[in-house]
């Protein structure tokens, strides 16, 4: 009985992805005439060939990779630095700083599109990598996760290091961070996934086609621009390819994601 439900639901959840993959190997007429067919006839890699030999697609991949890697590594570092300060260090204004982080977390992202555009333009970094990357360097939810984690590990190791005369940054870098590996991995996954899948920020932060990321490029493919029209195999091939990095990450860290996401939900 339970298995019946489970299998039925699993089919509903999985089949769309199977159809996407299968269709990406079909010819355009075959995809349109037989959208449900699970065997491409004839099977072709034309869609993938076209994508990789086009001007645009490799650029999108490159831009997505640059942005995601920069954002992810810097974000993990800065968020844990701030989380550590909020969890362990004693200084005036700590409560206010934490309150600010929580307040910022509560502001819905879509409301910030116009404000972000305004400041990015005002700072003269509109339509540059800086404008696309720097605003994503920090995310309040990440600070929050790290702060909670640091509070859950014992303070004694750090204190003895301190007595040995290590500087605070030294303690943070060589003692605290290695202990925080589980939280760092969680944050890494969330940041990677978040910036790889980000669309709206890039829409307001840039316009040149040379700065298109995969999300922006495929979004444009979807609306039929770039002559894509009804070329579903091409669009689906692009979607499949852009899903691969997050899918790999997901399957490697499956256990951790399934446990961690319950506490730290993506928006």
């Amino acid at each position, binding site marked *: 009985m339970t298995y019946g439900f489970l299998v039925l639901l699993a089919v509903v959840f999985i089949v769309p992805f199977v159809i996407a993959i299968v269709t990406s190997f079909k010819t355009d007429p075959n995809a349109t005439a037989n959208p449900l067919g699970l065997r491409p006839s004839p099977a072709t890699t034309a869609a993938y060939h076209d994508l990789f030999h086009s001007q645009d697609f490799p650029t999108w991949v490159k831009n997505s990779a640059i942005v995601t890697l920069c954002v992810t590594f810097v974000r993990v570092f800065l968020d844990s630095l701030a989380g550590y300060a909020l969890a362990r260090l004693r200084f005036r204004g700590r409560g206010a700083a934490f309150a600010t982080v929580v307040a910022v977390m509560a*502001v*819905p992202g879509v409301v910030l599109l*116009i404000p972000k555009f305004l400041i990015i333009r*005002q700072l003269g970094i509109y339509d540059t990598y800086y404008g696309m990357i720097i605003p994503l360097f920090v995310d309040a939810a990440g600070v929050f996760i790290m702060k909670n984690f640091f509070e859950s590990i014992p303070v004694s190791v750090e204190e003895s290091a301190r007595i040995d005369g290590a500087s605070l940054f030294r303690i943070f870098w060589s003692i605290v961070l290695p202990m925080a590996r589980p939280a760092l991995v969680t944050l890494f996954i969330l940041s990677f996934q978040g910036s790889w899948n980000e669309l709206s920020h890039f829409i307001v932060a840039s316009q040149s086609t040379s700065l298109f990321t995969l999300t922006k490029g495929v979004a444009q493919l979807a609306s039929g621009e770039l002559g894509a029209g009804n070329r579903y195999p091409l669009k689906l091939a692009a979607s499949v390819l852009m*899903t691969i990095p997050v899918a790999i990450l997901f399957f490697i860290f499956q256990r951790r*994601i399934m446990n961690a996401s319950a506490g730290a*939900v993506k928006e």
Partner: protein
Amino acid sequence: MNAIARRPLLRFREPGIRGHQAAAGWFFLSPVMVILGLFLIVPIFMAAWVSVSDWTGNGSPFGSHVHFVGLHNYRQLLSVPGLDQSNFGTALRNNFYYVLLVVPIQTAVSLFLAVLVTRALKFIGFFRTAFYFPSVTSSVAITVLFLFLFNPQGAINKLLSYVGVTGPSWFYDPRGLFHVILGQLGVHQPPASLANGMFLGVSYWDWLAGPSIAMCVFIIMAIFTTSGTFMLIFLAALQGIDDSVYEAAALDGATEWTKFRYVTVPMIRPAIFTVVTLGLIGTWQVFDQIYVGTKGTPANTTLTPAFLSFNASFNNTEWGVGAAIAFILFGIIVLFTIITRLATRSPDHVPRRRRFGPTQPLGTPDASRVASAGGMR
């Protein structure tokens, strides 16, 4: 705030170390505070100014050619009849129905999925993975997939044709769901009272249209992509319930359903609050899918406030109006969050009413359930 005070802080015996710590504290925090301030807090004030100005996107919004117009932009949206108002009213209506359908359905579906996958069954990990996977994919990829599945000659309509149903043209169909149902019942024209009355530039009859068929696809898509995320929240909550509670309930003769209704639901009330709140916040912000999929078409029936705000600013150079929409949307989201909190505020009488308390655990907890919970960790 309390949490901060109670936690152990680094303690040092040497004098003067406090000053050291203060410097280090701010040094560690500064990158985050600078970026949050510069890209989140300052711009909110800039946008607040733009929302009461007549800036058209030329030059700096703080230039001398930009004037203060008071609440003009807000009035254009809320009280002055015109295109701005009817677009905004339409967007609110569309998003309202989207929220109304997505939030309850995704909450129910994700809870149902969580209940199914808490059991210790073979291959349960596979099923959890399958249900969660859509949550990690990008909204762009999912929208492209749905554009294919739901195109008029697409997979869904093909499937429907096997059971003798002619599917609608989905993304191209602006008819409201409730209007379609009324049409089936023979009601094609609105009564005069509904056709003539207007609110926010939209007639009462159109307010009652329901989500358009096109919007229904976005509703299905939202449920498909977010149920997995929320399933995990429910799963964590369900695994936190002690087995003895269920055993006690079983001794009292509770059936599966009464156990679910009177034990499970009250005990996971905080998780329900979380899911409903996150659902409300997310669904009022729907943007990516609309941008990729329909850009508000057909006949503005998939227009949402978030997309309208973007479109008014970036495509129609009505920056003041766009910023005003963003602030109104913010207000709506805050309002709904408060309402949810009031509605699901945990009533104190829940523990008192519970007839089968966890006071006398009889027997050991079911070993297989414990094993499954352990397997997750």
